């Protein structure tokens, strides 16, 4: 164990965070030094928080310095805990209370058009993520977190799951690559996570390892809410095994592709047109559909070019994908709009759904539009189109009444 432990971030562009330095001393009790941007308004409450937390971990002699740029209490708590865990051995966790509004579950086939990545060690990007209404929010423990920050990020992500309201977005966490990612699960499974993303997934066994570990934690903590899985395929091998991965567990509800690593793996530069990844994307869509789960596309990395993004999403939709990753909140609206059904698609879907409802009312076993028979998967697809149209504001919720049809 080190004698001095630090955690958090400081520097010119850092906001809503803090940098904590903890030094265990031989005697003289606790001394706390707070340099805070909001000290006049929150200095006393920050002091109190520090004292309570040190006492919780049984620390009696220490020098604690907090350099604060407006960190919320759950951030302060996480940083102090992380610093403490560098200087003492403890299994205790200092967990903030779970907001009642964060206790919600999601469904297997909910919309997953947009999933917003948030670096797991950057609190300022987390606070307002939910107000931009992505379908899902990913607290990322993998690529966006520096290796020496992995431990403190886990604690921060755990606290964020308790304390940040994502306003109904699906609560997702991307763990680290298996096997080290298995350790991340302890920090997220008990805190109402809805879905786990498994990065660089190459086979069904990796999914099963995650699934098993989740079940163990759930059993231990008496948790009965579902936790779904979204493997991300980022290699040639993963693409070949896509169907095996998709069908490996009933908890897999979607499967994504990560093109940055995939193109590197096959030795082709990533191009704008994306010819080099056409096979992989189609393979992923086909495998996911065959398994009855959602195929999800990669991210688009130029956050300033909304027109190019729109084109990419339209292409993605035409390949059969149901959603895409976002790395900036501005991308959400564009993605939702581009995944929304076109007028022609809506009109067609309305006819089919109407025919289906009428057939049901008349007790007919067969649905038909004009002279054409309509199969159940087509009805299901049409219902999905209607739901999407309603959720993007392209169709009124009472569309059947409005039309008087």
């Amino acid at each position, binding site marked *: 164990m080190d004698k001095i432990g630090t955690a958090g971030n400081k520097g010119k562009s850092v906001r809503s965070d803090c940098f904590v330095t903890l030094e265990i001393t031989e005697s003289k009790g606790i001394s706390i030094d707070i340099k805070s941007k909001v000290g006049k308004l*929150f200095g006393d409450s920050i002091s109190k928080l520090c004292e309570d937390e040190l006492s919780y971990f049984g620390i009696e002699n220490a020098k604690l310095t907090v350099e604060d740029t407006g960190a919320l209490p759950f951030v302060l708590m996480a940083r102090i805990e992380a610093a403490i865990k560098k200087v003492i051995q403890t299994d205790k966790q200092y967990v903030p209370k779970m907001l009642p509004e964060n206790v919600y579950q999601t469904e297997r086939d909910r919309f997953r058009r947009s999933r917003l990545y948030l670096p797991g060690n950057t609190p300022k990007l987390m606070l307002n993520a939910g107000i*931009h209404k992505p379908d899902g929010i990913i607290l990322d423990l993998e690529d966006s977190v520096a290796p020496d920050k992995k431990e403190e990020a886990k604690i921060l992500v755990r606290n964020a799951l308790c304390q940040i309201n994502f306003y109904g977005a699906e609560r997702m966490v991307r763990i680290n690559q298996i096997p080290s990612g298995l350790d991340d699960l302890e920090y997220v499974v008990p805190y109402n996570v809805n879905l786990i993303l498994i990065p660089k997934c190459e086979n069904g066994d990796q999914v099963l390892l995650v699934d098993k570990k989740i079940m163990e934690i759930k059993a231990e903590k008496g948790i009965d809410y579902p936790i779904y899985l979204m493997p991300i395929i980022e290699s040639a091998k993963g693409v070949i095994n896509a169907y095996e991965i998709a069908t490996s567990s009933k908890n897999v509800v979607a499967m994504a592709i990560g093109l940055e690593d995939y193109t590197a793996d096959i030795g082709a530069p990533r191009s704008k047109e994306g010819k080099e990844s056409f096979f992989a994307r189609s393979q992923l869509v086909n495998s996911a559909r065959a398994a009855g789960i959602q195929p999800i596309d990669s991210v688009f990395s130029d956050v300033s070019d909304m027109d190019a993004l729109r084109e990419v999403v339209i292409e993605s939709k035409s390949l059969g994908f149901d959603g895409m990753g976002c790395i900036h909140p501005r991308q959400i609206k564009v993605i939702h709009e581009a995944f929304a059904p076109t007028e022609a698609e809506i009109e067609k879907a309305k006819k089919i759904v109407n025919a289906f409802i009428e057939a049901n009312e008349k007790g007919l076993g067969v649905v038909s539009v004009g002279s054409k028979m309509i199969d159940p998967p087509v009805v299901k697809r049409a219902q999905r189109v209607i739901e999407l149209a309603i959720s993007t504001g392209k169709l009124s919720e009472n569309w059947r009444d409005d039309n008087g049809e």
Partner: protein
Amino acid sequence: MASKLVKNAVGRLVPTEINGKEQVPFKGIGKYIPKGKKAAQPIVSSSQFPSNGNKIVGSLKEALIQAGISDGMTISTHHHLRNGDLVANELFKVIHEIGVKDLVWFPSASFPCHEPIIEYLEDGTINRIEGSMNGPLGKFTSQGKMKGTAVLRSHGGRYQAIQDGEVHIDIAVIAAPTADPFGNANGLYGPSACGGLGYALADYRYADKVIIVTDNLVDFPAMPMQIEGNYVDSVVVVDKIGIPEKIVSGTTRITKSPDRLLIADLTAKFCDAAGLIKDGFSFQMGAGGTSLAFGNNLHKIMKERGIKARFAVGGVTKYLVQMLEEGTLDYILDAQSFDLDAVRSMRENENHKDISIFHCYDYHAKGNYTTMMDIMILGATEVDVNFNGNVVTHSDGYLQHGIGGWQNCLHAKNVILPIPLFRDRIPVIRDEVTTLCGPGELIDVIITERGIAINPRRTDLIEKTKNSGLPIKTIEELKDEAEKICGKPAKPEFTDDIVAAIKWVDGTVIDVVKKIKE
């Protein structure tokens, strides 16, 4: 501060005397109607001025001495050169050399670039600032280090104070990007071009002595004559009056912050739902990133529906110029140009007119433009549950900003404040604002990223937007939401010493700022 304190119409305790002058406590909006004649300049005779029209003197020092500078005088400057101004700092350096004391600096606004003036406040050259105190000057004032009591006025309130004699300017020193030897001047040309010079209008029309300082002397006549040389005593030519890139931004930019874009988007949607975007409407917005994003959304809506606005008052940026040049806006009335496109447009476009504070904000004018405006977009450092607003202090109690035109703008028909619900952990909606700069009855709508609060007095807006699908909440709900996220902040501690008075647009005292306990 031995003066008696009385409770004014918004419940704030204010002194009846400041800097030895008797004060009227705020009585309510439009309730204070002073009588009498407006102030005037001393009679002069043109025979006493050079018949060849050449009023150039050798140096600023010479000009000040010629103007009879002496202890206790009030010296005014304008802020069209914004954070690139070199004249005010040079002015007080020269005054310090001359050795006069106890002056009142009466700028139309100050900027962080004026930090060197602290030295002259410390050594007694300047007794106090009556104007705005930004950044370092604000901190200095809050720490109780200014000898006299600072007085903060709105842009319109400054004009009012000059006109009704509350403030008498002894010497106005006017930085002019272009001038001729007679004293005609404008801000349109020259290396330090800034657009209009409207903030200096009251100064040169009411000051006893007027000195023009320019770095771009042209032959008579300097056209256009935004400032008329017939009011000018002397002209001083210097190397440089300003730092161009700090005067106007090369280009102003829409915010990239997704949260602020969301607020701007909600603001445009709210205006639309409330039926405020219609043919012939008028609006004013600032040059902040959120305002510009709002303007962009507004422009989109107008183009889609073929709606044309009649006029916009500014704070002008390229975004307003775009509307004018694309035909969605008939007139720009420009009190201040914020970027190079605005300056260019004022030179080139017939319908882009420079106006002054007299036209848009002055309390002693026979009406002003602001009350006619349909949509007014403003900011605030704090708002309270009674919709009162603060723009001068932060929640930590420090004076940080001037009032600008904010109080004047509150008189528009629909006053909308797009602001974040909290900044770094500090909630923006409070039980009570730290400093009350504007009464809640004039603030109609608060738009945050987490919801919109409409002043209960505006039943019309509430009715119009109730089925809009917008996140309309009560202001208490918004306050609770912020405190749930941030925690409830403590109140800063003050001593009893009054360091600054906040004037309302009519010259009455609406609140005071006290010395901070550090």
